[in-house]
């Protein structure tokens, strides 16, 4: 019997699903090697089908998306029980991702903004004797490993097909990677950057610029051009796609294994590049970074040491 595999999404966008589809021809090979028993975006299996499976009967569940509501938490717990291995698939599951930016607000603030004067969703609803329930919308978004034990992580927004293929092979191999491993290279993106050699040895920046304020040269290190490129602090694995697209790295692969708080480290690294000890000059240099939390914690706020904004 072929090993069983499940794909599921929590608070996510479906980009991780697309990334699996982007395996293209190889997807057929994967489908040959494993039985996909659950994958809402592509297959018609239901939650009750999963619930009916014996515990531990799935080899691996690839769960993407952050944990935003109670239903996602329940599904994560269900898949955890059914699976021998759980992979946090993509940066939302690993660190919280873009949906994690919601931790700058809370449930009340979001619901008030989204529904304004309309009907606000209620946990329970009954009509004509029929009762329905909605999941609880949490105040705080968390990464997958805050609600269940996670065995492996696959970073990226989304993970690239190459990494996905390697991860599947690693899980099918006789010897599994060490528990807790991030299934991607463990050096920073500069290592893969085509512009690496153009970074001067002593790079100091007087003023940063925002991407729409310059016509960026296509050969030169973007940081050397004053753009806040987070490549030096971001795990490699994407092969510098954004930089090849002439845009700075925004950090969607998260930190290396040696860094505990991606945003704090990235902030520290970028601040180190500023060529001044004068407070007002430093302020001016940082004018091009009007949104530090959105810049440095864009994909990792829920898993940062602070986790969220403290609401008054």
């Amino acid at each position: 019997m072929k090993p069983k595999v499940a794909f599921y999404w929590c608070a996510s966008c479906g980009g991780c699903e697309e990334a699996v589809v982007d395996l293209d021809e190889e997807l057929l090979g994967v489908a040959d090697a494993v039985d996909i028993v659950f994958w809402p975006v592509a297959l018609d299996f239901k939650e009750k089908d999963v619930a009916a499976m014996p515990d531990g009967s799935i080899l691996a569940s690839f769960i993407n998306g952050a944990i935003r509501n109670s239903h996602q938490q329940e599904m994560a717990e269900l898949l955890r029980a059914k699976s021998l291995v759980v992979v946090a698939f993509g940066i939302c599951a690993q660190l919280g991702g873009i949906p994690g930016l919601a931790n700058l607000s809370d449930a009340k603030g979001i619901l008030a903004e989204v529904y304004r004067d309309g009907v606000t969703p209620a946990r329970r609803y009954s009509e004509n004797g029929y009762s329905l329930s909605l999941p609880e919308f949490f105040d705080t978004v968390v990464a997958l490993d805050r609600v269940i034990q996670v065995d492996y992580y696959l970073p990226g927004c989304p993970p690239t097909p190459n990494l996905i293929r390697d991860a599947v092979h690693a899980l099918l191999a006789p010897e599994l990677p060490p528990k807790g491993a991030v299934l991607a290279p463990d050096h920073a993106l500069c290592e893969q950057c085509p512009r690496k050699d153009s970074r001067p040895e002593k790079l100091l920046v007087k003023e940063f610029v925002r991407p729409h304020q310059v016509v960026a040269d296509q050969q030169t290190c973007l940081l050397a051009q004053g753009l806040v490129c987070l490549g030096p602090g971001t795990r490699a694995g994407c092969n510098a796609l954004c930089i090849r697209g002439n845009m700075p790295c925004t950090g969607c692969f998260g930190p290396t294994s040696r860094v505990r708080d991606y945003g704090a480290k990235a902030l520290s690294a970028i601040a180190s590049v500023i060529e001044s000890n004068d407070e007002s000059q430093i302020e001016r240099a940082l004018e091009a970074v009007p949104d530090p939390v959105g810049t440095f914690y864009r994909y990792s706020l829920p898993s940062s040491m602070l986790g969220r904004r403290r609401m008054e």
Partner: protein
Amino acid sequence: MDSARRITINPITRLEGHGKIEIFLNEQGGVDRAFFQVPELRGFEKFAQGRPAEDMPQITSRICGVCPTAHHMASTKALDALYQVTPPPAARKIRELVYSTFFVEDHALHFYFLGGPDFVVGPQAPAAERNVLGVIAKVGAETGLKVIAMRRKLRELMALAAGKAAHPVFGLPGGVALPSRASR
């Protein structure tokens, strides 16, 4: 409540997004009430506030990873309007190229992965076959591979101009980040 009177479809499948349908039947077996739930609020409306405008194309694309290009492009055009700039002809053509490519690619995805199985494999087929693999089985591996190869090329073309196919990075107010070039 008699469970025979309640039909739950959870989750709804083969589309981007979380959904659940609950149907309640009356005594005669007709539909009395039907409820469609989409419990997947993430709060972009709130957390996009306070972020720099030029970050919007990359942030809003995460609304949907199946059609990120649409959100990316909408934000980019909003930036054009915000900065009151008109992209030069070359940039406009690059944007149109990317968007048209996405249009074709997205249709292919929809037809073979999402909606297609209902028509090609048929609504009566077993659930386990009513999917892309069933479609390929039905139309034959040769056609399947041809479709997959075509979609791959479309995605590569998008990546060439937009940096990434999944969550593009090329939109800037008044233009694009990367000029067109003969080769990469």
